[in-house]
């Protein structure tokens, strides 16, 4: 796939991610359907396999999940020709997705920390606490049941359950668990 992108196209890429940055309540991953519509369906800057492998690789790699956006920018650039453009695409995509939300978060955090004794601020944090804890468990559950065939996927569910209990109840190092998961998967046992 080879593209020729004009300056206007690069700007469109930047503004697309910058808009999504402020809509991404619950993480950048929540805006994936919108990115797919723009990058794959409308603009045809990425192929479907490039789009999905960007997400899968960033999930598997260490670091924040938002790096899938960097890979999308990288792949758009590569389609436009070579590593130089790939680096540009990555920089444009990451700038877009990070700058608006960063500015907002920093100001909001400063404000809420300065006013942390205000009844409204305390009520917000206390009121949201059970929700955000439940959201973590819901995320784990959803990731687990993404594999939804009980006959072939019971092994994966077992791995999820065992690692959840081990991390909850013991101080075992997380890298051991991830290594074990990778080994079980590579050997074809799960």
């Amino acid at each position, binding site marked *: 796939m080879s593209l020729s992108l004009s300056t206007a196209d690069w700007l469109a890429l930047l503004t697309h991610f910058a808009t999504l940055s402020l809509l991404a309540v619950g993480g950048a991953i929540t805006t994936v359907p919108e990115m797919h519509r723009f990058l794959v369906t409308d603009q045809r800057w990425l192929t479907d396999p490039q789009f999905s492998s960007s997400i899968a690789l960033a999930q598997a790699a260490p*670091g924040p999940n938002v790096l899938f956006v960097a890979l999308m920018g990288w792949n758009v650039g590569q389609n436009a020709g070579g590593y130089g453009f790939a680096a540009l695409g990555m920089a444009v995509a990451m700038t877009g997705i990070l700058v608006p939300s960063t500015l907002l978060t920093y100001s909001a955090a400063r404000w809420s920390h300065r006013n942390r004794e205000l*009844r409204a601020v305390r009520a*917000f944090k206390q009121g*949201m606490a059970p929700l955000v804890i439940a959201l973590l468990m819901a995320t784990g559950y959803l990731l687990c049941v993404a594999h939804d065939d009980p006959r072939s996927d019971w092994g994966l569910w077992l791995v*999820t359950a065992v*690692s959840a209990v081990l991390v909850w109840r013991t101080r075992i190092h997380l890298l051991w668990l991830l290594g074990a*998961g990778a080994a079980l998967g590579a050997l074809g046992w799960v």
Partner: protein
Amino acid sequence: MIEAATAPSTLQHRGPGSLTELFWAFTWLALQGFGGVLAVVQRELVERRQWLTLEEFVDEWAVAQILPGPNVVNLSLMLGGRYFGVRGAFAAMAGMLLFPLCVVLLLAVAFAGVADLAAAQGALRGMGAVAAGLITATGLRLLPALRGNTMGPVVCWIAAGATFIAVAMWRFPLAWVLLGLGGPSCLWAWYRLGTASARQQGRPSP
């Protein structure tokens, strides 16, 4: 500047000593975070380094999760900003992103060669299953932070249970859940905080 937390605490929590320490701490925990960094953040910063208490962590996480943008990046810049202002926010965020970005690019280039191998796909699948467990466990480990919650245990359990069902079972969009359940929950907390302080003021001082 955001000054360090001054709330009285029985345990003295120390923060990072320098911007460099902050940067490397976040680099190190980001590089351990396969399939999500939050589990590692909680382990490293609350349990191992003790830069903040479990309750403070939940407070910060509530704000980071509700604001738009990548959650753990938000969390890193909030925590960095708490200790060293703007420079701290940048140091923590750079630590969270810089090296992981290099790793993910190397992986993308390398994976292009082996993407079709069954073993490579299997390893990804196995690590994904572990990562799902890690996120669940992080939620479980944060539960004790609800003990001192002003809303009381029953309301906390109802709010948490309803959130789980709405998001995990019924797949409601997050924004609806935050408004529909978070709104009433915050209002209840606001009411309880009011009655608690009224009770304190009504009591004759010892």
